[in-house]
């Protein structure tokens, strides 16, 4: 009996030789046009919006002369093509979009200082979400239409409906103020503090991640479980557990992995709300303040950073998918069997 024809998943890119390397190369080639497009769009669109950075820095009561002097000092009164040329040169030679108009420090330094915290929230949130979503989805799929299945489908969706800032405040009240297990906010100063400080924010974010992951994974699991090869494996005597976690999950995970990468992409620049609620000085709040202050170099820098990182994330996911998918590992011509 031949195995059932493999389902086409959107994750399958090619079955040629060195499939993983080729996926990586394609993704890298995507970075350049994306980055260029983002840089151009942000640079010019920002300057179309009303608002003067020098006036934002000095406030309403500062004399017009002092504001004009500051504009000159910051190079804001140069003609636009000149400003863009200076910016492009600085970016290509120093990898920096310029000094912050408000803080005076280089944007790259600001991003390097703040990014780890925001990335930490995202990474921890992903870890928590996956650790929660996988067992839930597997349990629901194995007990299809049972009471457990219904509970797993309904309860996380309630969490999805709660606004993030409200979830965050609830977590603070319960776990920080009342139980004192975690700090109320901020990052803390001792080496151990950062991890403790990121737990509640990560949990808050995962309220929004778990429901779609569970639903997607559960649906995929059910589909894969009904495939012939699963019947074959079970008939061959493998335990249900081994079949589920060793074979079914690997096949079912691919679309969910792609879905996860979409959510991670939106989280990369989107940690603002959770940062505000928990008093964390991360990239999200830096971006928000920079936009409010019309701090052009910082907004440009963060936009570029987010664009590049999103492409990198999709690259990682493509590689991961290509690696997990048994068909790409085998290769179409079946010759080398190399998995990268």
């Amino acid at each position, binding site marked *: 009996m031949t195995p059932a024809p493999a389902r086409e998943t959107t994750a399958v890119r090619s079955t040629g030789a060195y499939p993983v390397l080729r996926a990586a190369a394609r993704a890298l080639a995507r970075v350049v046009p994306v980055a260029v497009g983002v840089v151009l769009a942000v640079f010019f669109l920002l300057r179309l919006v*009303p608002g*003067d950075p020098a006036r934002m820095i000095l406030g309403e*009561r*500062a004399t017009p002369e*002092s504001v004009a002097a500051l504009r000159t000092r910051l190079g804001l009164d140069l003609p636009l093509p000149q400003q863009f040329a200076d910016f492009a040169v600085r970016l290509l030679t120093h990898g920096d979009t310029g000094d912050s108009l408000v803080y005076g420090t280089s944007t790259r330094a600001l991003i390097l200082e703040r990014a780890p915290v925001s990335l930490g929230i995202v990474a921890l949130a992903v870890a928590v979400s996956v650790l929660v979503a996988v067992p839930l989805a597997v349990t629901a799929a194995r007990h299809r239409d049972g009471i457990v299945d219904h509970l797993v489908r309904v309860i996380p969706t309630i969490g999805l409906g709660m606004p993030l800032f409200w979830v965050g405040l609830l977590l603070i009240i319960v776990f920080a103020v009342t139980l004192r297990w975690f700090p109320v*906010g901020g990052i803390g100063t001792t080496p151990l503090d950062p991890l403790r400080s990121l737990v509640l924010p990560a949990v808050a974010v995962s309220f929004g991640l778990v429901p779609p992951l569970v639903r997607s994974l559960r649906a995929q699991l059910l589909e894969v479980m009904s495939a012939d090869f699963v019947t074959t494996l079970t008939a061959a005597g493998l335990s249900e557990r081994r079949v589920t976690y060793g074979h079914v999950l690997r096949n079912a995970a691919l679309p969910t992995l792609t879905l996860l990468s979409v959510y991670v992409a939106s989280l990369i620049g989107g940690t603002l709300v959770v940062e505000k609620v928990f008093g964390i000085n991360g990239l999200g709040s830096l971006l928000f303040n920079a936009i409010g202050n019309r701090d052009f170099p910082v907004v440009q820098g963060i936009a570029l950073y987010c664009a590049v990182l999103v492409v990198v994330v999709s690259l990682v996911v493509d590689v991961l998918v290509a690696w997990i998918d048994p068909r790409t590992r085998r290769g179409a011509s079946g010759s080398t069997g190399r998995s990268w």
Partner: protein
Amino acid sequence: MSRPHLRRLGRLAPLALATALVLSGCAADSGSPATDDASPQPGGTLTFGRVASVTSFDLNNEITANNAFAIDKVFEPLVAFDSTGTIEPWLASDYAISDDGLTYTFTLRDGVTFSDGTAVTPADVVFSLQRHRQVEGPLPLEAPITDIAEGTEGTVVITLSAPYTPLLSELSGFSNGIFPADFGGKTEQEFFAAPVGTGPFVVSAWDPAGDLTFTANKNYWQEGKPYVDELVYKLIPDDTQLLQQLQAGQIDAIDEVPPANVADLQANDATRVVTQGSWEIEQVFFNTQDPHFADVNVRQAIAHALDRDGITAATTFDTAQKADALIPPTIEYSAADAGYALDHDLDAAKTALAASAYPDGFDTTLLIASGNSQRAQEAQIIQSALAEIGITVEIESIDIAAFRQRFFAYDFDLMINSGQSDAPDPDGLVSFQADPEGFSQSYWTHYTNDRVTALLEEGRTTPDGDARKDIYLEIQQILANDVPYIPLFYPSNVKASTSAVHDLTVLPNGSVRFQDAWIQK
């Protein structure tokens, strides 16, 4: 016992009694929210949560509060104002004004040194003030100064071309702090990256986008102060987080308190609230170039239609004081008690509107900056109040950078904004709001009244006293009738701390004199 012995005992008795009293007082203090008669204990780190970071110490080029209230910990002026706005000698131990009001002689206090130990000399004062005049900063000296020079024997002499009563007030501002001549041999940039001044604190670690740590100035001229060893300005951009971190004991004090939470903090034994009258005035401004608001009857009608008591109580949770005059009571010559303001009277409002060119009402737009929930509430109350006299208000809420762009271009009908004084003297505030020749053109209202303009000029040149008082009272009366703007309320400066923090002295501009503060162990 022999007599001499008894006499010695006799002298000891009052001392023993006094000691017993003091000790019993101390015992009573530990545990209850402390009275500030307890004597200061030196030591400790005071962590102060603020919503904005410090981006520069260049005092002559700064104006915004986030930097000003770090600068005033490092640099100090010749004279300073206290929490009531009264000007007192500071780096100058004494000053004399000539009879014609043109010459001011300041005597430098003995023994004052910069934090690095070098003595402060008249040359430093002259250099600092001259530099301020040269850089054309955002908060310049407006006084008609012709010369600043060293006088005889440790004095500095400032000469004016015309009498200018607000001079001392201007000199008390943070932007007129004293620093070493020639920046102590460093370049400007080097100096302001590691500033050296006479102030109670020295910068030890500084992240312009994050926290700032000060250590106590060992050479500070006020004996025994500052009491704390270290002062940290911690960046916490969200005001709810400020509150939560204070309540959790993660920080010692906070720079602002959401008005809705003030009552809770006051009721809680673990926290303490300090409220101080400010120099701010929340106002509704009219663009008098708009055809509707060019008519004084319309403006008076709107003033009568607003219940300022209600607005104050509802939007500030009773932490602010209703405004009955432009000049707040924390500044001299305030007419807040004089009863000039048009009262809440719907009939008078309708009558005034009937006398205008728009007796049936009209449509207009109220411009506010977004992100401020208190102001959004004020706008809604005003909208519904004006609906009662037939004026339909549309609220336009835009982001603050765009908001500033709009009203700077006079592209608004009505707006809500905050007027503010930077100094104890009324001239700065009133000129900014009523001088059509000033750069704001009467706070962007285009209001022109020749009598007011003449009075402003007189106010600047008349020495303090009853004559000057009458001038400012008359100005406020005219403004109350002409209503180019309607003062709504005077927000308070509200700071909070844990109950272990004592003597948080809050100044009317919102700054805190941290050299007075101490932490109870």
